[in-house]
């Protein structure tokens, strides 16, 4: 869906982006991760031509972006900014309707789409007539996303979409975004400096440093098969949590104790991550009375914190070997 081929951006004071290539499949979310100044935002802005590359080709949806007028290109790509960038003189509804109006949708269609998006993003209908300044930070960011999704673009560019929020709001909105069906179908390029966010939202993660790609791959690849010291160092602080979050129950299934028979266990889906499983178990109201289990190919296995941790260690050893 998106291909970058040997793209560079040269500024007067040096190279911001240095000969990078990657591609994003349709429906995939790729996260550009890195410290500030590593060139990740520049890379994103080159895709909707807010910045023109010095060298290299960018192909979106099979077409070289240089061959289309930038305004038309941008109308087909959703864009979410860190500081939401909502028009302060437009109401929420008017903000959402910006791209549909540029595309000359009729009023009814726009209104229907606005209502739909407000609902999906858990914004009450009364918000529609408010101005951005009257909203909370989390609401503003949701409206920003709704605006980017309004014309249903196949591609979404998100530049630190949650960067301006406090950690609590951030985590809850991240969960919401993760569960939003509209986003699941989109091809998304997301820029962040937050490791946690990258691992939670990205199908694949592209770690950048000084304008170059250090490693591109899945969460587990970065965690368990880092290409160099920089990658390990970058994720060191949150490594344990990230690892637990990157592994699903079905992956450690074979390391769990023997299958059991029974009916009173609470079942967790096999796609549950180890982190979520531990959270669920430790937050149980009656830890002594409740039991948890998961089923893979009709076999049920009980899960406890102790056995999960043992399975996790075994799994890690198995993939390193």
């Amino acid at each position, binding site marked *: 869906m998106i291909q970058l081929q040997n793209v560079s951006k040269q500024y007067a004071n040096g190279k911001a982006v240095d000969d990078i290539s990657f591609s994003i499949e349709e429906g995939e979310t790729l996260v550009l991760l890195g410290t500030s100044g590593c060139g990740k935002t520049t890379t994103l802005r080159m895709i909707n031509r807010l910045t023109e590359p010095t060298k290299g080709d960018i192909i979106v949806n099979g077409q070289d972006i240089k061959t289309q007028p930038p*305004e038309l290109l941008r109308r087909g790509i959703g864009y979410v900014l860190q500081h939401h960038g909502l028009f302060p*003189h437009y109401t929420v509804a008017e903000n959402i309707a910006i791209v549909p109006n540029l595309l000359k949708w009729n009023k009814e269609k726009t209104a229907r789409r606005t209502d739909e998006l407000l609902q999906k993003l858990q914004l009450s209908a009364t918000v529609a007539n408010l101005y951005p300044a009257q909203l909370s930070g989390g609401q503003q960011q949701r409206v920003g996303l709704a605006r980017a999704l309004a014309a249903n673009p196949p591609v979404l560019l998100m530049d630190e979409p949650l960067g301006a929020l406090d950690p609590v709001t951030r985590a809850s909105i991240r969960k919401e975004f993760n569960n939003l069906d509209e986003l699941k179908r989109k091809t998304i390029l997301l820029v962040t400096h937050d490791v946690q966010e990258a691992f939670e939202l990205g199908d694949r993660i592209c770690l950048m440093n000084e304008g170059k790609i250090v490693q591109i791959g899945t969460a587990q690849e970065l965690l368990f098969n880092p290409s160099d010291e920089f990658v390990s160092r970058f994720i060191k602080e949150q490594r344990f949590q990230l690892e637990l979050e990157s592994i699903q129950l079905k992956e450690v299934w074979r390391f769990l104790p023997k299958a059991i028979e029974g009916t009173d266990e609470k079942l967790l889906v096999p796609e549950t991550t180890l982190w979520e499983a531990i959270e669920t178990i430790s937050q149980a109201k009656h830890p002594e009375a409740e039991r948890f289990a998961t089923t893979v190919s009709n076999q049920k296995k009980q899960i406890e914190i102790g056995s999960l941790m043992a399975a996790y260690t075994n799994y890690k050893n198995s993939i390193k070997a």
Partner: protein
Amino acid sequence: MNEQQQSLWSFIQQQSDKLLEQTLAHIGLTFISLLLSIIIAIPLGIWISRKKQWSGTILGIAGVLQTIPSIALLGFMIPLLGIGAKPAIVALMLYAFLPIIRNTFTGINQVNSSVTDAAKGMGMTSYQILFKVELPLAMPVILAGIRTATVINVGVATLAAYIAAGGLGEFIFGGIALNNTNMILAGAIPAALLAIFFDFLLARVQQLNIKNARISLISIPIILVGLSSFYLLPATIKGHMLAGFTPEFMGRSDGYLGLKSKYKLNIRTVVISDAVMYKAAFENQLDVISGYSTDGRLKAYDLVVLDDDKTIFPPYYAAPIVRQEILTKYAELEPALNLLSGRINDSIMTDLNYRVDHLKEPPEKVAREFLIRQNLYKEPRNGNKGIVRMGSKIFGEQYILLQMYSILIKGNTDLTVETKTGLGGTKICFDALTNNQIDMYPEYTGTGLLVILQPVNNVVQQIIGNKEKVYEYVQKEFINQYKIKWLKPIGFNNAYALMMRKKQAGELNIRTISDLKMFIDNN
């Protein structure tokens, strides 16, 4: 105080037609120029917000325009645009530039960059970004600039009266020249009220919330065009002859009022400052002007004085006035000073003034050459019998006379001379004389009568038409009251006069003010 208010009120009532006309002209003048300024300055402000490298230059130029004194800016406009509405509108427009350009620039720059970035990223064209995002968001700041410009323009527009563009300045400057407080207030109070009112009005528009920015975008131009239409361009009134009179002349009974009552002269008039009046007449923009009969510009601009055949202008014969004490002390002084008596008529004085004021020759040189031609020049004797202290007011004619007297005293007596030129106006010279700080200075009979002695009105009326009677009266009263002697008149009469271009006067065969009246009535 109450009396003052009463008479101000009655003045306003008497002059209500004129006041209304001036107020409307003032509003129109302010807003036409404001409208033009907006049309030019806002696009310019937008442009420099795009091309930042030009912002310093453009704002610098607008800033320089702002620092030019208003009257000078109006003056610069005369050679380019003549007199009347055009130069005034252009000058006011230039004055309004800076606040509007600067605020447009600032307003657009302070729009949050993430908002413009979002607009661009969503696929808005640069026009759409400008009109849908930047201008609406910059509107409160731009309006603040327009508001500043409006208040500046209401103030500066009073000066338009100096170049025949009308407005409330006519009353203000007329009042100042005539020392008529009611007249000043009748102009100044409405001008101040206009400034306050428009400031208030624009403040309200500015406070409309951001949503209504779109409404103000539309309503402001409509209001401006509406207000501008108050200004009926004077050029649209057709007439054969146009007179330009100073604000002072307009309000004097021995000026325009006398022309109307004694000559029944019915001529179309505009108010204008004497600084530009002569040139405007020379450039065919005015046909008749009020001037001073020995002014050098009369010659410089080839004008001719119309004969005051019904003598409405009081005589202003020049003569030295000297403290009696010093005349007694040095008996040889008076004959020396009287050598000049009768030697200089109006046209000679005009010529001498022309050489000093227009050709910039030094007064000493002009004075010496004149005395040599008249065979009055004698080498200085370098005596040391005593000192005569001479003063003068600050204009060329007085400097020339002072130099002549200086040469005459040094050549004909053993006295030496000490000069104190540039003593400001009549009041300062006369006070210096009575306080024994100077011994003499050249004065004019009309000034002595009307400014210094200020006798009751019926005394003035009895003698004002007769130059000998005025001279006799001031001579007698000065000796009695101040022990100051009027010596013999020099000969010329530096009085008010009506003037026309020599060529036009000749073609139309107009020599007197009565001729002018006949001509106007017959056409």
